[in-house]
């Protein structure tokens, strides 16, 4: 028994076929969003999508279709690099931020070392003014 023509899923509508009650695509490609299946079909093909879904437990299929749709969208927008381009860009981001962190931490070390030197100097040779307060003025700054 198949779904009436009016309630065929987007996949069966696109492929112009009957939509059976147990259509594997129908839960994930509703008829009100034809573009979703169109994109996925363009990149992966209906047959591959069906095979992929059949290999997965039912609870995982929705997420799988979501990711397929996302990847298909990326590939259509960027036919050369697709999703892999985003991965590459993120890897570069990680590298850049890690470098920045390393540089900043090195600066912190320099600051701390120069701070310790000044503190030691003040401890050995405290200077006081008329008010009896320690002179905390320091014009020496360590290298950056």
């Amino acid at each position, binding site marked *: 028994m198949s779904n009436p023509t009016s309630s065929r899923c987007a996949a069966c509508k696109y492929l112009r076929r009957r939509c059976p009650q147990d259509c594997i695509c129908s839960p994930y490609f509703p008829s009100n969003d034809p573009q979703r299946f169109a994109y996925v079909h363009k990149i992966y093909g209906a047959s591959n999508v069906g095979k992929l879904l059949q290999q997965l437990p039912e609870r995982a299929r929705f997420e799988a279709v979501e990711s397929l749709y996302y990847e298909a969208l990326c590939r259509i927008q960027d036919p050369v690099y697709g999703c892999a381009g985003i*991965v590459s860009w*993120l*890897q570069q981001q990680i590298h850049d931020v890690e470098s*920045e962190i390393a540089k900043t931490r090195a600066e912190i070390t320099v600051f701390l070392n120069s701070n310790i030197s000044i503190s030691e100097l003040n401890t050995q040779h405290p200077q006081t003014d008329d008010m009896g307060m320690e002179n905390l003025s320091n014009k020496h700054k360590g290298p950056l």
Partner: protein
Amino acid sequence: MGGNSPCASCKLLRRRCTKDCIFAPYFPSDDPHRFAIVHKVFGASNVSKMLQELPVHQRVDAVNSLVYEANARVRDPVYGCVGAISYLQNQVAQLQMQLAVAQAEILCIQVQQEPVIMPTSSQLAATIDGTDEKSAFLLHNNLPAQYLNFASSSNVTHESLKRESFFGHDMVS
């Protein structure tokens, strides 16, 4: 690749490998797995159409990225490449937090090291109140401990994603 030895795709598809085979430059016969995995995920027909729509000088990169995505999908049939993207985005966010903490720490140290100019006794007599200045100075030093000892955890199984560039590397283990 002409009549001598069919490319990996024509071998798998069991057809004659012509001189102008669109797959031949990108799927050499010595690496059958490369085409097999792309064919499994995308299908030869779809790959052929995608390549035909691209100028020749972009096809190498396109094929490399398709191989990468196909490998990712085989390794993770549910999330594929999107899983990697999600993981890397999380890594970027964590690292940016670490950077923010480190930069805040530098600011704090810089404030500490700024010369505190002590007024002379005559200047002190002319000023209104010095205690507000000291309070502001102390405030900058009271950073919560969690910022100074921030550490991120990382998923060991995904560490390779941070370093490995997909160009020239196959994801297949």
